[in-house]
């Protein structure tokens, strides 16, 4: 779906809008569809679509915070790895 440049969002139905949403998210800077000036009028006229976009942006933004790890393996795991490494050719451990 690469016809985004030619589309007139002002005359689009919500169903049509959702068809283009995956591509809109993929091509918007930072995934911020709500900041796209071409969509301003459409989103103002379609609060359900604006709410959907806002929610999906919130989910994507919160997902970025999951990048920082909050889990760690058991302490025994390094011993297991070190044991295996001793059997490796080249024996670096």
């Amino acid at each position, binding site marked *: 779906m690469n016809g985004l440049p030619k589309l007139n969002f002002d005359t689009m139905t919500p169903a049509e809008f*959702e068809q283009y949403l995956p591509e809109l998210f*993929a091509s918007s800077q*930072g995934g911020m569809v709500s900041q796209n000036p071409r969509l301003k009028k459409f989103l103002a006229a379609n609060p359900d679509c604006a709410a959907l976009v806002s929610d999906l942006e919130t989910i994507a933004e919160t997902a970025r915070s999951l990048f920082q790890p909050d889990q760690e393996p058991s302490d025994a795991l390094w011993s297991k790895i070190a044991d295996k490494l001793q059997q*490796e050719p080249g024996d670096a451990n």
Partner: protein
Amino acid sequence: MQTKPNSGLFKRNPPIAGEAEAIERAKNGDPDAFSKLYALHKRRVYTLCLRMLGNVSEAEDMTQEAFLHLFRKLGSFRGESAFSTWLHRLTVNLVLMHLRKKGLQLVSLEETINPSEEDAPKRDFGSRDPQLAGSVDRVTLERAVASLPPGYRMVFILHDVEGFEHNEIATMLECSTGNSKSQLHKARLKLRELLRQPEQLPVLESSREVTQ
């Protein structure tokens, strides 16, 4: 429309103090240096495995595999991307290989990536969807991600959490870029649905929290 200038993963993986030296020493067979690389990256590798697999035991096994693989392949690391980017790609490929061996033999992920109708997000134009209450907390999102069908979960983790681009995901999952975009969108829609009823989300398997 603009596209992102660089891989998000590279931007999110700034060099770690002492890492470059440890890599060079480990390449020359210094066991302490490899142990340091493990200490620096074990959490990120393990968390990635745990999210992709949803199982503590399997996640530990794959973390072990990832570091053994790292030991064997370290000599081929040329520093063209951030070390953690390289290590994460290596880990993702190992986990995907493991998943294919486990249940996806002879069938590409492209064909099995689509969940059943029951699992697919429900969209009903004409009726008003209740909006999420402004923000989503990290723990609740983690539980919702764990509840996603595997195909959706994989694309969501790789793109929205790990920062891979759609073309990289398409290569890793052996699917088209369009399919990756579409699956990501469906994953986010499904998450929205799940996050509206957070009380129904399952409690995650007990895990050890990072303490530092």
